[in-house]
């Protein structure tokens, strides 16, 4: 294939994966979240827009999806006076583009074994830097929040933006450091290699239990959800950094957030929960190391999705259970407990690896 074809193919793949799959998951997630919160607060939840009548309660999902979409499209696109027009417009865009780009390196189905030649059908780009690319992109999503906040020219927004910047920088370190242990064990930063490695030895959650717990905590903080939702703390800052956003721009912001949640869940699944591996089921491969695709592949993609939903559900459970941190507690937790623990985890991992080598 020529370079042009490769690029074209990559773009098609990207559009198919991101818009056909990720966006769908993220949208469904909004409803799942509402239902889950209603369940935990002993409410009914979304129960107005039944498409096929009350006999089919799940049809409310579809109705709400449609009506939500309609709502954000037709509402007034309000721009606060004295706001910085261009940056205000740019903010949601900068927030959502990195969230899309995160999916470039996430494989959601089986690909060729490490070292084997061959195209990976469920991965957009098999980069050598692997997950590092994801972190680079994720670190950029901060700008969406902070710039939008600054451009809004509102005190609530600005405080929310500042909190976002500080929080995301603080927890990004922990998030990344806890993956390093996994990299060390499997000797690669490519998620595909890591998943194959987990199939051969054990899942990351058993090899890196402390790493998994810390990653979970940091991932919640990184996706700005309760108990780490200080950037958008409703009771303190109205809506935090997107206080001054409405209609489609607001929707783009929250969409970006939900895609981010899905992406982080996908990374957690890839690194700690075995990715698309089904326990005790061997993936059949041909002589060159490329898996033989068949019904098992479908099952594997399904199990990947299932694991992801479980992880997201765990996050939601935490979100609706725990109260919000105070700001100083947040910083203390991040820098004084999580970071040293992650480093300790790394050192212990290194020592054990050296000992059992």
């Amino acid at each position, binding site marked *: 294939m020529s370079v042009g074809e490769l690029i074209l193919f990559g773009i098609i793949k990207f559009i198919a994966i991101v818009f056909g799959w990720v966006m769908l998951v993220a949208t469904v997630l909004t409803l799942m979240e509402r239902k889950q919160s209603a369940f935990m607060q002993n409410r009914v939840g979304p129960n107005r827009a039944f498409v096929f009548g009350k006999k089919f309660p799940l049809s409310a999902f579809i109705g709400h999806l449609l009506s939500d979409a309609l709502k954000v499209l037709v509402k007034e696109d309000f721009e606060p006076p004295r706001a910085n027009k261009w940056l205000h417009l740019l903010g949601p865009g900068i927030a959502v583009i990195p969230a899309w780009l995160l999916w470039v390196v996430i494989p959601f189905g089986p690909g060729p074994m490490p070292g084997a030649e061959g195209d990976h059908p469920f991965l957009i780009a098999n980069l050598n830097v692997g997950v590092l690319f994801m972190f680079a992109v994720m670190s950029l999503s901060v700008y969406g929040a902070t710039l939008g906040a600054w451009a809004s020219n509102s005190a609530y927004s600005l405080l929310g933006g*500042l909190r976002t*910047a500080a929080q995301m920088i603080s927890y990004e370190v922990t998030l990344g450091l806890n993956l390093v242990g996994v990299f060390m064990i499997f000797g690669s930063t490519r998620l595909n290699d890591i998943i194959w490695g987990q199939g051969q030895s054990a899942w990351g959650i058993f090899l890196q239990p402390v790493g998994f717990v810390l990653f979970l905590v940091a991932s919640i903080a990184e996706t700005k959800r309760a108990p780490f939702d200080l950037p958008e703390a409703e009771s303190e800052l109205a809506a935090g950094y997107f206080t001054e956003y409405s209609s489609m721009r607001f929707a783009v912001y929250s969409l970006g957030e939900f895609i981010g949640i899905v992406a982080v869940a996908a990374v957690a699944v890839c690194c700690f929960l075995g990715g698309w591996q089904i326990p005790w089921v061997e993936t059949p491969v041909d002589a060159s190391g490329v898996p033989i695709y068949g019904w098992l592949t479908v099952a594997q993609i399904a199990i990947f999705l299932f694991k992801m939903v479980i992880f997201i559900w765990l996050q939601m459970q935490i979100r609706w259970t725990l109260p919000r941190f105070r700001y100083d507690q947040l910083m203390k937790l991040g820098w004084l407990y999580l970071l040293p623990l992650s480093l300790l985890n790394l050192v212990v991992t290194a020592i054990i690896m050296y000992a059992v080598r």
Partner: protein
Amino acid sequence: MEFIQIVFWLLAAGAILTSLMVVLPRGRNPLYGALALILSFFFVAGIYVLLVAHTMAILQILVYAGAIMVLFTFVIMLLNLSKRELGEESKNLAQALGVGAVAFIIIKSIIIVDASADSVGGDNLALPKGFGTIESIADQMFHRHLLSFELIAILLLVAVIGAVVLAKRTL
């Protein structure tokens, strides 16, 4: 001109333009300067990609654009300087001289580099296998430049001590 060369010149021009935007209109809100600097990092990362230094490109974005510049914008937003505090644009002889000197250096360097471009590198620069991968960078860092790596560890420690010593309210 080859495709790669066109890309290079575009990236280089972008990097220079955005770098100029960081400093040029004085008295403007520094946040725009910071944003221009972030853009400039992206252009430089693009040049790294052209040089087959993929890991460096990613690290450039991860560390500079994603971490350090966030802190810059954080501080700028926290200070939220007013127009008055930013000061008016001032022109004097020293500034003119400085601009002249910089312009001279730029022009001179372009001439020099252009004149000697043929003698450097060229086609005989064959990249070793695995160039630009994480593995090769790790190999350089932990074998050939291990001492520097360790010294940098101390350097960062010193920087941390310095920040605490100079900025903590009560020591």
